[in-house]
Every structure is written in structure tokens, then in C-alpha cells.
């Protein structure tokens, strides 16, 4: 690790150009005043710039490496999207400034709502959820509000496939539901018989990702929709994998009642080391009254926010203000650049890249988890053979890939495929990069065969070797407490 910023601190050093004029504080009683200063570094501006620039250089990122993290859609984040969002008219506007002072922004958000409606086939869209998980929460809360509004209060269960993202069951519980898991069949589709047995008058809804988390298109989606709808339940679409079907098939046409989209995936807003994202929700006709506020409406030539007064049945507010506006602007700019044709090409080339990579990896001897199925925008390699033959795990392959200059795919998700790598190349990577990745994985396989102990020591070339997770969790060290460390 680099020396912590605190360890570079010297008493009374400051970044002087940033200091406001000193004024005395009057009127605040001593009992309410702070008596000891917080532990913040005393450093110069150059020290700060150098320290954080150097830290940035210890990261893998899309701008520097191929980042085929499955289920995360790590595609190129166009620079212009960021520049647009940081313009003073957008970045400097207060959330409670009058609507008249934000017509440019509101027009953009209104257009984005329209655009997302069109690509998803939903009736109306609210942009406000701040992340996919918050969009999920909004979606399930709307399902609940819908049933409650009809006094249909016996519905206590949400059905979730066993391969689902962990957020799905966690969200259902946050909305006061019990979770019923149903199995996935060997071919990756949902077990229809199990679904039929699971639905009933207690079913509030089902949460699905399509393409599913195992990287294949759920072919029986119409039948699933019918079974759940016939039981009085609603269908929730987890938009994690929307990139695979953009412009090809729409969740609304598949029969979904409510969806969330991850704009930080499909619409290429930055992941930022773990956020901020944006998780707009779209709904079918019957859920429109329950959408979270605020939303943007157009009256004549004017745009304004819709509030509680306009939408009395809304599930309410999810953030103090309007959601992650800066992220929405970036997504809007990206969508404008793609346009209709570009939007369709996203799914086409994401799918082409995934299927090519799957075919090439198979050619060099890797085993696909669903070899009989078409890959969507992502696919799963299982290393159970390598684990057995060479004692080399998915984790070992992942760590060694870092030495080859590639970020690792998602490992150990979905949980039902042993020793799995979930690989999503995205449409913005070239064939050359994919070929390089295949070559690297093939070399690692050869290394595993020759000397697995050396493989288990990887990575060797990064700022850190493999980190001790057990120690991190047993001997919690979550804040610096003043001791110095060797650099």
C-alpha cells in the first residue's frame, strides 16, 4: 500500500489556496462546540494531487484494461457524457431552484423518460431510483401497493429463481414479503413444473432476469407470464441484462408489469469504483399510479416535476431530492449518440462478442456451462474439470488473469454453477482484445497443468499479492488509528 494520506500530514501545513477567509464564530454555545479537531490530514495541494493520482494508478479500469465482469456491462464510458454533465448549468443547479431555472435539464429528463419507455415497451417511466437495488425496491413496493389498493392483502410471497441476483430476495424481504425459490433446469431455463407448483393465491409476483443470470434467454417467458398472471401475481423484470436485448425484444412485450434498468450498465454511465448508478423503473398501465416521485411532465412548452399532489397513490420518495440527475444526464447523452440504429447494434455486437469468445474458449479446451445454448451478451465457463484435474480453482484463474493485464470475469456467481467464470465482453471491445484474452486463459490453463502451486500464488505483478480476507474479517481494521506503517 501507499502511505496513507494521514501519514503524510505535518502540523499546520495547509492547501492555502482553498481556505476561506477566517472569521470568528459567534453565538454558538460552548456546550455545542467541538473541542478536538477531527483526524483530517494537514497536507499541501500538490501532496493531495500526487497521492490520489498515484492511488488511481493502482486500479484496473475500463479505460486501462479489458474488464469482462459478467452481469456488470463494463463498456466504454464516453468522455463527452461526463463533460456535458459537469457544465455549470447542470452541475450548479440547486434541487429546490424553481422549475423555470431548469428547463434545459427537465427537457432532457423528459426525453430520456420517453426514450426508455420506447426501448422497454413500458407505459411510463420514473427516473428517480438511485441504483439498481433501489429500482428493485421501488418495483416490488409498487407490486405491493397495487395488491393493497385492491384489498388483495393475502399475497405474501415473491417467487425468485435460485440463480437470481442476491438483491432480488433481499428486496422482497425489505418490502415485507417471504421469498420462495424455484429451481433452474439443466438447460438454464426455469423449471415450469416447479413454477406451477409454487404459484397460488399467496403469490404477489415473480422476479426474473431475462436473459437470465446464467447467460441464456428464458425461452418460456410467455408461458411463465401466463402462469403468474393467471394466479393473480405480477412480473418483475430485473434489467441487469438489458444490454443483451436492446432493440431486439422488449420486457413490456414479454409480459412484464414492472422493470428496472441499470443505466450504469446498458447506458454506459461510469461505475465509479462502485457507484453512483441509476435505476429507473418502468411499468405497465395498471402500475402507473404507484410510480415513485418525482417524475417530469410536459405542459405546453413547459416542463415541471410531478409531486405527491399529482400522484397521491405513489409509493413515495426514495431520495431526498430527484435521484441521481448527473447520471441521468450522462445516460441521455449516450442514448442521443447511439440513436435508433446504434441502440440495436448494442445488443447485436454484445452478443456477437460473447458468442465469439465462448466459441474460442471452447475451441482451446474450456467447458461451457450451457454448451447447447446460444450465449447472450454473456456466458459461463465452468472450471470444475480444471479444479479436479489440476486443483486450480476459478479464483486461481481470476487472480492470474490480473497478471496478464485483464480484469477477471465475475467468479462464483451464479452459485449453482461450480467453479464458474461469468464473462461479459460488451460490444465496445475489439476482436484483438478478445483474442488476447483467450490466449491468456489458455496459457493459464497450461500453467495450472505444469505448476499449480505457482498459479496459486498469483497475482505477482500487482500492487498487492493475494489478500488475507479471513484476517480482514476477524481482526477488523476499518479506520486508521494513528499508527504508522511501512510503505
Amino acid at each position, binding site marked *: 500500500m501507499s502511505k496513507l494520506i494521514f501519514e503524510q500530514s505535518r502540523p499546520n501545513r495547509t492547501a492555502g489556496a482553498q481556505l476561506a477567509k477566517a472569521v470568528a464564530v459567534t453565538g454558538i454555545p460552548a456546550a455545542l462546540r467541538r473541542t478536538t479537531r477531527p483526524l483530517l490530514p494537514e497536507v499541501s495541494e500538490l501532496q493531495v494531487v500526487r497521492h490520489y493520482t498515484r492511488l*488511481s494508478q493502482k486500479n484496473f479500469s475500463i479505460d486501462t484494461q479489458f474488464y469482462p465482469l459478467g452481469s456488470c456491462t463494463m463498456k466504454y464510458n464516453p468522455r463527452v457524457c461526463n463533460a456535458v454533465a459537469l457544465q455549470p448549468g447542470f452541475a450548479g443547479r440547486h434541487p429546490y431552484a424553481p422549475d423555470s431555472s431548469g428547463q434545459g435539464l427537465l427537457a432532457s429528463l423528459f426525453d430520456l423518460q420517453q426514450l426508455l419507455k420506447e426501448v422497454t415497451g413500458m407505459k411510463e417511466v420514473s427516473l428517480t431510483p438511485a441504483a439498481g437495488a433501489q429500482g428493485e425496491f421501488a418495483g416490488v413496493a409498487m407490486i405491493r401497493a397495487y395488491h393493497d389498493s385492491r384489498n388483495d392483502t393475502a399475497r405474501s410471497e415473491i417467487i425468485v429463481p435460485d440463480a437470481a441476483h442476491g438483491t432480488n430476495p433481499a428486496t422482497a424481504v425489505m418490502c415485507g414479503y417471504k421469498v420462495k425459490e424455484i429451481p433452474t433446469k439443466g438447460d438454464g431455463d426455469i423449471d415450469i413444473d416447479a413454477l406451477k407448483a409454487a404459484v397460488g393465491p399467496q403469490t404477489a409476483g415473480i422476479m426474473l432476469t431475462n436473459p437470465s443470470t446464467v447467460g441464456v434467454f428464458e425461452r418460456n417467458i410467455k408461458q411463465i407470464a401466463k402462469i403468474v398472471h393467471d394466479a393473480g401475481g405480477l412480473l418483475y423484470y430485473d434489467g441487469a441484462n438489458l444490454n443483451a436485448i436492446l432493440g431486439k425484444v422488449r420486457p413490456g412485450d414479454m409480459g412484464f408489469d414492472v422493470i428496472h434498468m441499470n443505466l450504469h450498465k446498458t447506458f454506459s454511465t461510469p461505475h465509479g469504483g462502485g457507484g453512483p448508478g441509476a435505476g429507473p423503473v418502468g411499468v405497465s398501465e395498471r402500475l402507473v399510479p404507484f410510480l415513485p416521485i418525482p417524475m417530469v411532465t410536459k405542459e405546453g412548452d413547459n416542463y415541471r416535476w410531478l409531486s*405527491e399532489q399529482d400522484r397521491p397513490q405513489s409509493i413515495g420518495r426514495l431520495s431526498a431530492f430527484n435521484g441521481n440527475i448527473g447520471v441521468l444526464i450522462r445516460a441521455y447523452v449516450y442514448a442521443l449518440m447511439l440513436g435508433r440504429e446504434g441502440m440495436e447494434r448494442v445488443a447485436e455486437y454484445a452478443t456477437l462478442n460473447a458468442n465469439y469468445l465462448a466459441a474460442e474458449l471452447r475451441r482451446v479446451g474450456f467447458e461451457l456451462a450451457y454448451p447447447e445454448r446460444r450465449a447472450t451478451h454473456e456466458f459461463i465457463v465452468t472450471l470444475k474439470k480444471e479444479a479436479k484435474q489440476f486443483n486450480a480453482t476459478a479464483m486461481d484463474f481470476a487472480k492470474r488473469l490480473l497478471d496478464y493485464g485483464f480484469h477477471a470475469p465475475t467468479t462464483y456467481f451464479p452459485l449453482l454453477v461450480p467453479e464458474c467464470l461469468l464473462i461479459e465482453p460488451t460490444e465496445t471491445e475489439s476482436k484483438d482484445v478478445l483474442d488476447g484474452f483467450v490466449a491468456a486463459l489458455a496459457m493459464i490453463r497450461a500453467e495450472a497443468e505444469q505448476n499449480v502451486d505457482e498459479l496459486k500464488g498469483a497475482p505477482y505483478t500487482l500492487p498487492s499479492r493475494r489478500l*488475507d480476507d479471513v484476517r480482514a474479517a476477524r481482526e477488523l481494521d476499518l479506520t486508521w488509528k494513528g499508527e504508522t506503517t511501512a510503505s
Partner: protein
Amino acid sequence: MPFIPHTEQDVAEMLDAIGVDSIEALFDEIPAELRVKGVLNIPDGMNEMAVARLMRERAAGDATGLNFIGAGAYEHHIPQAVWDITTRGEFYSAYTPYQAEASQGTLQVLYEYQTMIASLNGLDVSNASLYDGASALAEAVLMAVRAHRKSKSKRILMPSTVHPAYRAVVQAVVKNQGIEIVELPFCAETGATLVAELKQYEGQDITALVIPQPNFFGVLEDVDGLTDWAATNNAIAIAVVNPLSLALLKAPGQWGQSGVDIACGEGQPLGIPLTSGGPYLGFICCKQQHVRQLPGRIIGRTVDLDGKPGFALTLQAREQHIRRSKATSNICTNQGLMVTAATIFMSLMGAEGLERAAAQSISNTQLLADKLCAINGVERVFTGVNFHEVALRLPQPVDAVLAALADKGIYGGCALASYYPGLSDCITVCATETKSGADLAAYATALNEVLAA
């Protein structure tokens, strides 16, 4: 093709390797009747030059006035270096640090952030952030319910001086989990929560008490009295605070005899642009004993195979990707990029920089309030001590006055009518360190003209 690098020859070779003759064939598992028919009603794509021009024009007409609104989002100076560095591609385009060895930069930033924000709050630990201040308060309430194993009531006392939007968010998030939010009235004279009002809840099973500082009116609460009440009545104390104010005000960990259990709030004042409300970052800190109930990502320092110090995500077993339906929260990510900005901001400002920005904001707001109250019919609503925001009563209908001010290029404050029916003739105003003497005078002049018109 925007952002797609494939040449025709690439495509041909790739299709050949897959063993299909067209890209279209790759979609053959999607039932034909579900496929999009015709073309989507979406405009043609624009090149970068065209889109930049369109968005420049749209941004140019926005937010052209002087801003005196606070109400939970504060316009502070942001050093140029903060976003220059934060938007470096290595921070901007990285993901959650799942592969710790390839993410030591982001992980160390988050560890430094946890240290800074925990210290500002005077508490032992912090997570790596939540979505915003309101969602942080909602998570703090859920956390208190989990942490207080002896309390069965799930009753939370919530002062009505907590930001109205925060209260709305808490309600939206917790309402399906059997949690009851009981609102506490404020003193009409001081604008602060009355500790005496709590008497009626003594001896009852109360899970937690929320304590805002400063409160929505900018008034300072009796945080020691409220925290001690919580301790005496076996309730978890949850502070909701402005982090910049903590440069000057007593840290929640030091409130009362033993400090609060949990502190949360909005990190926006720490270098995050206003951007019409987001993205911001919520922070949440707590005493060590509650660490396993903290939601969201947490970074720990550990060692690598060579025994050298390094950083990794830790306590992951609480999280949704492992614990699924029994997770502490459904939250996946944090607001990593915002945390990066806040950490760089706090490093540049240091304790002294934060103190000066806070002190100048208090001073400017007092000056502004004095100037405005010199106008006939304008008066302070409350007698309580203010931080950098103050409630004022206007002699004419608030909406019309604010609209007229906006026409003069002044965003004059936050109207209280829709949140507090009894304060329908009142606004809150805030003048941060970004406002000059001339700015304050411009507001006073404009208000004078509007009221005289």
C-alpha cells in the same frame, strides 16, 4: 458506429468461428412473436459535436441565478483538483473492488474516507457510503431495529424538525416492515425539539430516537439532552448531521454522557456539486458494537501473501450477494465516485479549511438575515441558535415573492408551506462562504423591490 470497433472483416471471421452466417442468427432462441416489429420510435444518432452543442444550449439557460437555498443541499466552493482527479479514468471507469489486488487505489481511498468520516462523527466505524442522506437515515432506522434486540416495539421517535423529504423517504422504505414512526413536535418559539415533550414516552418500549443537528430550520438542537434521554430510556440514538457543521459542532459520538449509537447524513457539502439533487453520498457511522449491523460495503485493512499491508472488502457475509433474503440491506454498491471526491475534498480542506468554510457560511447567513430583517415585515421565525441557515417570515405570499425574486436572478430560499402548514408564510435561507458582500446586498435590494412593488 459509435463505440463499436468491429470491421466487416472482423465480423466475418467471428461469425465463422461461431459457425453461423449472420449476427441475426445469434438471436434465434428468442421466440419470434416477441421480437420487436418494425423500427423503434427513437431519433437518429448524433455525433459528438452535435450532441455537445445541443446540451451546451440546454445547460446555458439553466441555473443562471444567485442561489440562497439550502434545505439539505449546500453550495460550497469545490477545489478544481477534486473533480479533475476524481474523473481520472482509473477511478471513473472502475467497478466495485471485487478483485482487491486490482483495486488497491479505490480501496485505499475508501479506507481513508472511512477514517475521515468516522473521525468527523466521533464514532468508531463507517461504511463506504450509501445513496444519499435520506436513504442513509432510512438505513439507520432499519439498522437500529436490528441492533436493538431487546426492543420489540419497532417504534421510532422522529422529530418533525428532521428534513421533511428525509422523513418521507424513511416512511417509504420502512412502511412494509412493521416499523412505526412517531413524529415529535417542535417548539414554536425556538424552532427546536422539546426534550420535555419526550416525557410521555418514558417507560415505553422505544427502539430509537432520531436527533437532527442542525435541524431543517437551521436551528441547533439540545443534542446532549436528547441523547441522554435515549440512553436513559434504552433507545438507540441516531444522529442525522451535516458533515461540514461537524468541523465546528460537537461530534455525535460525544453527545450526552455516552454519545449516539449511529450517525448518518448527507455528504454533499464535502465537494459534491448540487446537480439538481444528485448523485450525492449518504454516510453512516456507528459504535464498534453495532458494526455487524452496518449496511453496505465496508473496507478493511489486512495483509497480503507477503505480509504487506493492503485493503479488501470485508464483512461481506452481511451483504445481499451472500446472505440473500437475510442480508442487512438490498444495497449493492456505494457511491464510490462521490466518496472519492469527498475524500480528496476533505484532504485538501483539512480541519482548518472545513472550519473556515463553516464559519464563513454562518457569518454570511447571519449577515443576510440581518439585512433581510431590516426590510419592513420580514422577521426571524425562531429564537433558537442558527447554524448556516435561518427561517424567515415574509409579509407577502411566499410563492409570489420567490417567483419574483427568481425573475430578478435570485433563488431566494425554500418555501416551508408544503411541509409545515403552520409556517405557510415562511422560508429558509442560506448564504454559504461562496457569497460575497455584494451578493448579500443584491438579495436585499431585490427583496426590497419585490415587496415594494
